[in-house]
């Protein structure tokens, strides 16, 4: 056969292959386009919404929908089950009933009566009543979630009384509301052994609650296969606030921030949720057809010290205080929260000023370390440290160095670690940042080895002064202070006493207040942690989607926003309805620092938020990259051709 013929065959084969592959790609392409057009044209009338959920730790599946399981998927479980109570932020009362209608505490604090709303129903239409609530309380006790009650009694079809042997004034707040305790159906859970429900069974069985879920939330699970997304949720016709207007919610799980952002920007999703600093949400800011919502605070980021045992110098309060003065909190906050830094200043005091005053504290709360390197150096040198040649030395001449661990998967932490390293280097300390897995950070803080200083975000840190809770124990338990007999007394014991005091005295009683002030003073004098900044819950929502009309209440807002409220950790609970679909509206709900204002402000602006600067358009830059790549290819091709020709 002639070579020319062979060439022709090769050309024909190549053309046919390309043609076949083009068809292969074109069919789904055309279908996708058709779908996209349909979506656009009916965006104001469709009965479903696509929502994403960033799952750093479970990219392909949710772990469990069983609230009692240690590995349950909080975000999604909260869509299916409504909490009895939730914690609100000022000016709302701290404890807000949701599924419950209310509660009362007896004068001596030993009896709490919880009332359910009347005529509640499970998603299968069966009544949700005090039997379910009684069983839930029993289960909470069996699984060590609440202090052991002496009795749990059904008073009527909606009320249950829990009696404790000792006063528990804060039971509803600290045990039910803080943990978003839900009611579970007795008919389903009651047939299972407790060890299977709380996943402590010795035969490794654990109730995941994946199939035939009977729930009370706005949505029920209509389709879930492990390993497949989206997870389909359907409106619960028996939801206590009425069935949600949106019939379906589809939830997509994302293993990385980048893919989540890409999905939202490409209109695969109608809403983007993020909890963290402003820089976490910044990648999606700047799209004029989207609305950015800043809502309730999420985590307080802070520097924690390993002050266990003999971990000098971290056991020395003066060393911790010096580090606090050497930390440029304003700069860190500005970097992380950008235009929202003024609403995210570092504070772990969530009290409104009047409450602070009632406790006998300054209105703005007790904590405040002003950035002052000289002050930090003075504290160190007056406590036995030596500064020489820009380096800090212990009294024995050894250079001071520390290892700063941070969460590797948290986008905020590496930047903060770098800034802290820069700050502390100014007072002569050699700082070595070290990335660790989130779970490692969590387990490290429980022990006294393997770490020195950690950057961590914790919701517990901002409950200071209000209540006992995990925050106090987490923050203060490792720290010791010298007793009058020369020994070291650890806050572990003191915290236990404090927690007890906070529970056995009514809120804002004199004993309660004095304990709160004692805790506040401990924070100031002991510097158990250095508060850095608050992060927030953020949503960016597509304005292409019809979010509802304030005039006729046809959309997802206000009471109907509970679908979102559950999903976004209560964040849209207080968000005003969005006008739809144009002009673009930016609704910003901000919670200012209480040192400067007393109430949160809600603003609606008929433009893109001035506080949220528009991101520079990315497309031209990309096309520039493509053009550069194309030029490189052409130049390389021409050069290669010339080289080959010369050789020949």
């Amino acid at each position: 056969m002639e070579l020319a013929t062979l060439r022709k065959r090769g050309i024909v084969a190549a053309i046919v292959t390309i043609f076949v592959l083009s068809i292969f790609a074109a069919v789904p392409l055309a279908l996708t386009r058709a779908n996209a057009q349909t979506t656009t044209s009916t965006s104001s009338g469709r009965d479903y919404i696509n929502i994403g959920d960033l799952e750093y730790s479970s990219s392909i599946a949710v772990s469990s929908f069983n609230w009692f399981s240690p590995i349950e998927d909080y975000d999604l479980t909260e869509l299916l089950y409504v909490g009895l109570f939730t914690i609100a932020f000022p000016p709302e009362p701290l404890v807000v009933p949701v599924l419950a209608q209310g509660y009362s505490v007896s004068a001596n604090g030993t009896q709490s009566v919880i009332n359910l709303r009347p005529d509640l129903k499970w998603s299968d239409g069966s009544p949700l009543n005090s039997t379910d609530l009684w069983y839930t309380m029993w289960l909470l006790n069996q699984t060590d979630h609440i202090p052991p009650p002496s009795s749990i009694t059904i008073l009527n079809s909606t009320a249950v009384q829990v009696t404790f042997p000792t006063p528990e004034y804060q039971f509803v707040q600290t045990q039910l509301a803080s943990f978003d305790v839900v009611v579970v159906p007795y008919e389903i859970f009651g047939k299972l052994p407790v060890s299977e429900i709380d996943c402590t069974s010795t035969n490794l069985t654990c109730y995941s609650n994946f199939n035939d879920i009977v729930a009370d939330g706005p949505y029920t699970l209509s389709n879930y296969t492990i390993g497949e997304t989206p997870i389909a949720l359907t409106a619960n016709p028996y939801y206590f606030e009425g069935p949600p207007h949106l019939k379906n919610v589809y939830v997509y799980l994302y293993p990385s921030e980048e893919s989540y952002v890409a999905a939202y920007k490409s209109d695969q999703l109608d809403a983007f949720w993020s909890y963290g600093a402003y820089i976490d949400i910044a990648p999606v800011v700047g799209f004029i057809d989207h609305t950015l919502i800043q809502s309730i605070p999420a985590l307080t980021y802070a520097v924690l010290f390993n002050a266990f045992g003999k971990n000098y110098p971290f056991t020395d309060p003066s060393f911790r205080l010096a580090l606090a003065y050497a930390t440029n909190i304003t700069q860190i906050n500005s970097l992380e929260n950008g235009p929202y830094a003024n609403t995210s200043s570092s504070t772990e005091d969530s009290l409104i000023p009047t409450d602070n005053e009632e406790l006998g504290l300054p209105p703005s709360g007790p904590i405040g370390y002003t950035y002052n390197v000289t002050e930090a150096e003075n504290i160190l040198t007056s406590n036995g440290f030596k500064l020489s040649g820009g380096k800090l030395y212990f009294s024995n001449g050894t250079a001071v160095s520390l290892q700063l661990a941070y969460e590797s998967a948290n986008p905020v932490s590496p930047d903060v670690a770098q800034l802290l390293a820069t700050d502390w280097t100014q007072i002569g300390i050699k700082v070595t940042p070290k990335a660790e897995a989130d779970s490692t950070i969590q387990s490290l803080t429980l022990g006294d080895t393997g770490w020195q200083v950690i950057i961590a975000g914790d919701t517990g840190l901002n409950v200071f002064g209000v209540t006992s809770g995990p925050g106090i124990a987490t923050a203060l338990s490792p720290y010791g202070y010298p007793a009058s007999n020369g020994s070291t007394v650890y806050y572990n014991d003191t915290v236990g006493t404090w927690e007890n005091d906070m529970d056995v005295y009514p809120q804002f009683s004199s004993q309660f207040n004095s304990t709160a002030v004692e805790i506040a003073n401990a924070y100031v004098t002991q510097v158990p942690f250095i508060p850095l900044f608050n992060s927030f819950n953020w949503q960016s929502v597509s304005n292409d989607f019809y979010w509802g009309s304030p005039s006729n209440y046809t959309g997802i807002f206000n009471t109907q926003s509970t679908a979102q409220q559950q999903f976004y950790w209560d964040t849209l609970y207080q968000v005003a309805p969005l006008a739809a679909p144009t002009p673009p509206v930016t609704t910003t709900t901000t919670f200012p620092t209480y040192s400067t204002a007393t109430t949160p402000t809600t603003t609606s602006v008929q433009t893109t938020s001035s506080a949220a600067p528009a991101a520079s358009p990315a497309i031209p830059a990309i096309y520039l990259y493509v053009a550069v790549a194309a030029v490189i290819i052409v130049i390389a091709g021409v050069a290669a051709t010339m080289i080959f020709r010369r050789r020949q």
Partner: protein
Amino acid sequence: MPGNFAEIYASQLASLHHISYRIAYERVATLLGLGQPLYVQFLTYLHEVLFSFPPNFGPSFEFYPIPAWTIVFLALRWTLLLLGTAIVISLALGLFIGIFLATHKNKSIDRAAQPTFYFLNSIPQFWLGILFIIIFAIDLHILPATQAQSISANPPDILAHMVLPLAVIVLTTAPGYALIVRGAAVDTLGSDFLYATKAQGLRRRRLFLRILRNSLLPIVTNIALSMGYLIGGVITVELVFAYPGLGSLIQSAVVTEDYPIMLAIFYITTLIVLLSNLAADLIYPILDPRVSYVSS
């Protein structure tokens, strides 16, 4: 080795159940049989992996108590779909383009194609993936940026979600195959047996098939040897496109220190590489009669 599931699980139990960490850890240790001697634990583990079907790597830490193998198998389906399709298309393109270039040896198109293909072959897949997402999904809105399926999980929908990751893999692997095939085809075209075959008056179609078959040998070897690399490469592509395959899974397993999942993935990856090498060895005699495993 960083991470300890018992400690992590115990800390979760402790914080959720308001019990002390020590009590929680004791419960977890009993639950997982950590009280047994280390060698007994290891032998039990080996027995479960080697003599159970499917292999029992224990429960996933992240998806406890779902077995790690079940989670890996779920992800494997998507990886095999993506990787399998990509290999078939890359192979087809590589073969035809390679032969085409061989038959146009030293012509302008051949000279231009070679550096271009080297360039394409060296592009990082994650970079190309991000570029494709920005252009085709975010800017043009013609293809989905992420995931493997949407609400209507029908074949066209799954194909639509596969186009971008597939294009990335094909664009970065097919040029390599094309260059290998080109080299092999150039050798074949200049070989004596081809002249002899022509002289015998063999039909054109059969002649073409002979060139094809002789050019296949190096590429079969290459695919078998590079299977591990291909699986490694697809991991980054899956991450960029949030494709729910082994790539996304191993990323989350590393982040959460989910060792059973990691071990199951390494096990199955090793198995795939070994089996593909075995398959390559078995295919050789079919493609080239000179290779035989039967002693004369």
